[in-house]
């Protein structure tokens, strides 16, 4: 076990379970091999027609059977965000080998991120109110319009009663939730926290995204997600849920749990962008990187890889690439850079899926390729075409949002992985 830092084991937080419902399959065993092989989860939308807009691609979750994970009684009351989150939460707990019972239920909780919540249900309620009047609004739907519904449903289904909070800050909702989970475990108010993010595609939401000119093809050209590529022309909207089970190294060792990696630091910051826009310069990313390395107690030369936030957007990808070029200019060995948003799309709280992916990369010593990237906008050390086998000491998970919010995390290898 790596004891390089003099942080007590109770304050070192490790990942011991993963739950995934993604466009690349359900569960880590389906997801990760497909991700490494360069398989894409993006194709023509099937769940709804987006006739009114120029975009037709999406990264949809298919072949997900909520009944495999959720009791019929509780499932009846759940909207889609809640069923995805509850299923992923169950997978993460089971993967970690944690059974929630009377003795531990008050020390297990959830800290979930969602950017937009149940957009489908909200539009349904608004539609009823505005076309049929307030007396026709169905009370059963109401609780699911509130963003805390997925975390609440998950807690009811599995019976954990500890810390329970929902964070929403657009495209860094999940990363921010994970950062908060780290400090909650460190200060000892929970033993086990499930954390990550959930967002879904819906017709209304897809059309709204399109109107804000973020979706590919924003230039009327070839539609597709091409992170860091010269030919990028916007992101492809996605959906899904990724949840990690976190606990202290002390707790994981005591249980003899499988440890994927350590999350050794979080750095949160903002830049003064126009409130609806993506970052236009590299300053915010540079600041986030400085903060997270400082919090993790490592230096810039200790970074093996970066899982970037780049989604194929014109501004975001350029700002991020420039920041890494500048930040690592003095390093002889440049970190590998990859983005999986060409495979899973941009689901805003996709930081949960990306965090699961990075934990698997650290454990399996292998980085997934950047699907969609063939002509880099800048000569960074990109993982292109094929996966890259590499021992990862420290990897950065980059979270960047429109509105100028940044949430960065450092994932570190954790010795022999066994507690």
């Amino acid at each position, binding site marked *: 076990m790596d004891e390089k830092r003099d942080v007590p084991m109770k304050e070192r937080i490790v990942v011991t379970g993963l739950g995934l419902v993604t466009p690349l399959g359900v569960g880590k065993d389906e997801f990760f091999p497909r991700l490494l092989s360069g398989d894409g989860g993006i194709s023509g939308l099937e769940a709804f027609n987006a006739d*009114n807009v120029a975009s037709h691609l999406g990264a949809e979750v298919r072949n997900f059977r909520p009944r495999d994970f959720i009791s019929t009684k509780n499932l009846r*009351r759940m909207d889609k965000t809640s069923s995805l989150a509850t299923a992923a939460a169950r997978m993460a707990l089971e993967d970690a080998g944690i059974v929630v019972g009377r003795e531990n239920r008050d020390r297990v*909780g*959830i800290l979930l991120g969602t*950017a937009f919540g149940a957009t489908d249900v909200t*539009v349904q309620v*608004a*539609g009823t*109110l*505005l076309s049929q009047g*307030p*007396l026709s*609004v*169905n*009370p059963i739907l*109401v*609780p699911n319009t*509130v*963003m*805390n519904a997925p*975390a*609440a*449903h998950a*807690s*009811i289904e599995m019976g954990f*009663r*500890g*810390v*329970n*909070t*929902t*964070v*929403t*800050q*657009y495209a860094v*909702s999940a990363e921010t939730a994970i950062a*908060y989970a780290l*400090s909650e475990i*460190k200060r*000892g*108010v929970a033993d086990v926290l499930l954390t990550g993010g959930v967002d879904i595609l819906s017709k209304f939401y897809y*059309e*709204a995204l399109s109107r*804000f000119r973020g979706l590919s093809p924003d230039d009327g050209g070839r539609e597709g997600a091409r992170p860091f590529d010269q030919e990028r022309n916007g992101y492809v909207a996605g959906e899904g849920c990724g949840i990690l089970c976190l606990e202290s190294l002390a707790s994981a060792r005591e249980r003899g749990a499988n440890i994927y990696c350590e999350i050794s630091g*979080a*750095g*949160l*910051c*903002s830049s*003064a*962008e*126009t*409130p*609806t826009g993506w970052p236009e310069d590299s300053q*915010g990313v540079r*600041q986030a990187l400085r903060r997270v390395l400082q*919090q993790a107690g490592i230096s810039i030369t200790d970074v093996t890889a970066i899982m970037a936030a780049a989604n194929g957007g014109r501004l975001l990808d350029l700002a991020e690439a420039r920041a890494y070029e500048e930040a690592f200019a003095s390093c002889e060995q440049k970190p590998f850079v990859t983005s999986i948003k060409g495979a899973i799309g941009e689901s805003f709280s996709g930081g949960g899926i990306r965090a699961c992916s990075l934990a698997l990369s650290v454990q399996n010593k292998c980085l997934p390729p950047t699907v969609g990237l063939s002509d880099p906008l800048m000569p960074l050390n990109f993982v292109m075409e094929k996966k890259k086998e590499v021992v990862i000491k420290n990897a950065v998970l980059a979270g960047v949002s429109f*509105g*100028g*919010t940044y949430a960065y995390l450092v994932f570190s290898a954790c010795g022999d992985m066994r507690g």
Partner: protein
Amino acid sequence: MQKKRIVITGMGTVNAIGGNVSQFAVSLQSGVCGITDIDLFDTAAYRTHKGGQIKYFDPLQSIPDTFSTKRMSRADQLAFAATLEALRDARLYPFPEPFRENTGVAIGGGAGGLFEAEDFYSDLLKKGANRAKFSRLSSVYCASSADRIASNLALAGPKATFMTACSSGATALGFARDIIAFGQASLMVAGGVEPMSRITYSAFNALKSVDEDVCRPFDRNRAGLSLGEAAAILVMEPLESALDRGAKIYGEILGYGVTCDSFHMTAPDEKASGAVRCMQAALKDSGLTIADIDYINAHGTATLANDITETRAIKEVFGSRAYSIPVSSTKSMHAHPLDAAGALEAIVCLLALSQGFIPPTIHLKERDPDCDLDYVTEGARQRELRTVLSNSFAFGGNNTTVIFGKYEGRGAVHG
């Protein structure tokens, strides 16, 4: 974790009974009711018509022209107006350049720009997607308010929005405390905002949890809550830095607790386990005992279930001492501004600590036999307080309790 003392050095609010903190304090002291007929939208088709609407205060008046408010939702404007008041109060406006890098924003967000989005939804239904103005959605989500605050003031610290329904505002304060304690920021602008909207109003109507009349917390004839709207913002910083810059200090945040009922989406656990564990978690975090608490600012929504459950929980946590601790629901005055409630009631608590009074529960005429605590029904009580506890319990079973303490050193605010 090493304990850093974190204090509140500025406050700002816009709500149904105050356009700023000093008006709010006067209203709380004199038991003013802000629950009136709603005129923000036509309530003719609704079952109920009253609420704690912000009627007499214009947030735009306190926002200088240098800030564009054009694309801000009503919620964004309320939050920003309260932020400016809090910063002026803390003598941090214009915001000092050297503070920017390490100042963050944490907001309990509610309906966000839903009020404006209702017009959009209406166009979408009537005229179709091609003729609806999607730009109206640019501030629809509640995360927008934190973005507006940070970008308008060029704050570069951490930014996060919490959405746990009625406990959001309280949770944002707890998060802000931790962010400072863990050294991720040296100053936080933290609080909550909730605008009134037709969608929210109809949703609570559908759940039949709104009283047709004014809400009557702990009364045997209570018939639900009164929906409200508010923005409430606090400036939080470490005690040393507050002393260094000679700031006035309203009080200290001593601790908080967050738990989950894991029981039902809209009904509290009858055994009150979530609420009990939440108050206990906050006490533990504060390092206090039940003997230390001088006043409880109740969640006290005046729904049938909440008031009984909360009373039961207080008795479970405090034992026989529960009967000698004053408990009041200020929602009887300012109504229930959902996601902003925890932050607004934090201001109530800090005013109570710094001015030495206990705000009353108004409209309580006939006590529910199962609600048998001291609910401060006779009007505000003048009393020195050391520590106060504030509950926020939400749909989804999300509970947050925050504990505040009187600060008595240099810089302390009195009266």
